[in-house]
């Protein structure tokens, strides 16, 4: 089928970056569902995360006004009364996707009620770990000391009732960094301080992050590209800190071994944001793209498009932090 990135890409050993950029853009436009949202994979149900990434990636692209307008309407319709977004329209509980949906809407529309409600929900949503009673109970459990982390530093969880993890915390911090502080709800400054501290606490020894277990049974956790890039983007204000620099060094080291195009794009977005652009990025993305056509993954296509058009982006990852409106 025509919208298949795999079919289009699979015929070539390699593709030029410009071709990949065009394919990703066309793929995003073609895979938009009738309800205005985007699915994770073509022809599936719309979901909040891919809709958000598609909107972010298409921001400022020519001839995408109508698609963006429909996407925004779809996101608006999916917002729950409490201000959160569920993973997919019709699901009952809000989740981590709230930060991405709020970010996508803010980049398109600026300050508006859905963004404020989303921010309020995020700032009122605490992870399950780290409260006083939890700490006492955890201290008494025999398995409590197998991980090395300060659970009083609470970030954000993937789903309500679960613990803080690196990526959802980074998404929330990116949103808080993007939205001017005078629009923040009460308590946002504290949440941001805690979230930033939590990320540094969960950094793996030597720099870099995994999903949130820096050390288990005294053994350093394996670092991963995605969480490292997201954490660094969220902590970009502290670029000069040793932790950031060590983590960037690791990301640069591992860069040549990255085998997934989405990770490569994300690593490039991060390194570019820190002023360490990778000259071989475009040459490497083409062959990786050609291998599987991104497995037709909409967020991967969106991240690739963002990485290939850094100067077209609405400062999503490059803005000066904590500006006021």
């Amino acid at each position, binding site marked *: 089928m025509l919208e*298949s990135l*795999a*079919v289009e890409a*699979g015929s070539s050993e390699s593709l030029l970056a410009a071709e990949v950029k065009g394919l990703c853009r066309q793929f995003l436009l073609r895979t938009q569902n009738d309800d205005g949202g985007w*699915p*994770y*994979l073509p022809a*599936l*149900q719309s*979901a909040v*995360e891919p809709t958000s990434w598609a909107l972010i990636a298409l921001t400022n692209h020519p001839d995408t006004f109508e698609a963006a307008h429909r996407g925004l309407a779809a996101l608006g319709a999916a917002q729950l009364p409490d201000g959160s977004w569920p*993973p*997919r329209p019709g*699901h009952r509980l809000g*989740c*981590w996707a709230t930060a991405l949906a709020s970010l996508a809407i803010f980049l398109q529309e600026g300050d508006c009620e859905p963004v404020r409600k989303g921010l309020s929900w995020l700032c009122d949503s605490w992870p*399950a770990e780290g409260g006083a009673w939890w700490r006492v109970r955890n201290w008494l459990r*025999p*398995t409590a000391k*197998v991980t090395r982390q300060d659970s009083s530093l609470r970030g954000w*969880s*993937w*789903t309500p*009732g*679960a*613990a803080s*993890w690196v*990526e*959802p915390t980074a998404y929330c911090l990116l949103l808080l960094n993007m939205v001017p502080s005078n629009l923040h709800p009460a308590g946002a400054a504290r949440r941001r301080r805690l979230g930033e501290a939590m990320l540094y606490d969960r950094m793996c020894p030597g720099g870099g992050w*995994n*999903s949130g277990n820096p050390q*288990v*049974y005294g*053994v350093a956790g*394996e670092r*991963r*590209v*995605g969480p490292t890039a997201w954490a660094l983007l969220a902590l970009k204000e502290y670029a000069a800190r040793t932790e950031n620099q060590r983590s960037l060094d690791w990301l640069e080291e591992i860069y040549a*071994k*990255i*085998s*997934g*195009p*989405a*990770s490569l794009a994300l690593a490039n977005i991060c390194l570019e944001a820190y002023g360490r652009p990778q000259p071989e990025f475009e040459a490497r993305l083409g062959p*990786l793209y050609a*291998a*599987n*056509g*991104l*497995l*037709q*993954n909409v967020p*991967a296509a969106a991240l690739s498009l963002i990485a290939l058009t850094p100067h077209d982006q609405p400062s999503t990852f490059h803005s000066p932090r904590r500006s006021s409106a």
Partner: protein
Amino acid sequence: MSYANNQIMPSFQRPPSRVAIRRAAGYSDDLAALIQETASELGFHVQGKSVLLKPNFVEPDPRGIVNTNPAVVGAAREAFLRLGARSVVVGEGPGHERDTEGIVETIRLRDHIGKLAGKFVDLNLDDVALTSLRTRASRLKELYFPRTVLGADLVVSMPKLKTHHWVGATLSLKNMFGIVPGSCYGWPKNALHWAGISQSVLDINSTVRPDFAIVDGIVGMEGNGPIQGTAKFCGALVMGDDPVAVDATCVRIMGLAPERIDYLAKAGSVLGHVSERQVLQAGEPIGSVRTSFEVLPQFDRLKVA
């Protein structure tokens, strides 16, 4: 259909299970023939059915010991197609690595099943349906499951033989965590941890019980598994249509006692047989492939004296 036909049945009402242990010296052996022969021998009928292979793909792993070896996955696909399966799709939803393509590229899955389009599904991103759980071991009550899983005629769990630093061992039952979609529950699927790993294993498998299990025990992992342990050669594939009996057999091969692994003990009451007396062994006897796996000190209690 695996999901639709699955019924909770007390294990004492179940007939004895058959588990086959097959020797394999390495991943270049003719594993497809081995799997085809064993599936036929055990009466696992795939003719005209849609089959979902659920391997354990965790993360990019340069050492090649974390993930189910793609040669075993490719061999299973080939075997079931030869046996007349209508379709054989590989599906996985890695637990903490979002870049699934990065994982399958690192392990070169393409070299074993060909182009991935139409043959591989990222279960983290698939469409989902809210599904009531058939047991209430945890407080979850319901979970979203991928439609690819719910719609498959047959689900085959294909884990790697590994120790696990939270639950002792991870095999075909624990492997089913990978069908829970990250797009709903995150990376990791932390809601399952908070609901209790053992309890969640039971609830997931009571709802989508694998129809067949193929454990990659050619090279397993001991010590600080399931990610940071060390390679352990065992030289066997373990297969059967009762995932509980398969897992219990694997645990015995590892020199551990399955009755002391919490989720296996629980599964032994409703999902299949743990008791050795209720498992009819085919192929090699356990003793001929038994390989003592090192475990973390807190799991010393699992060791068979």
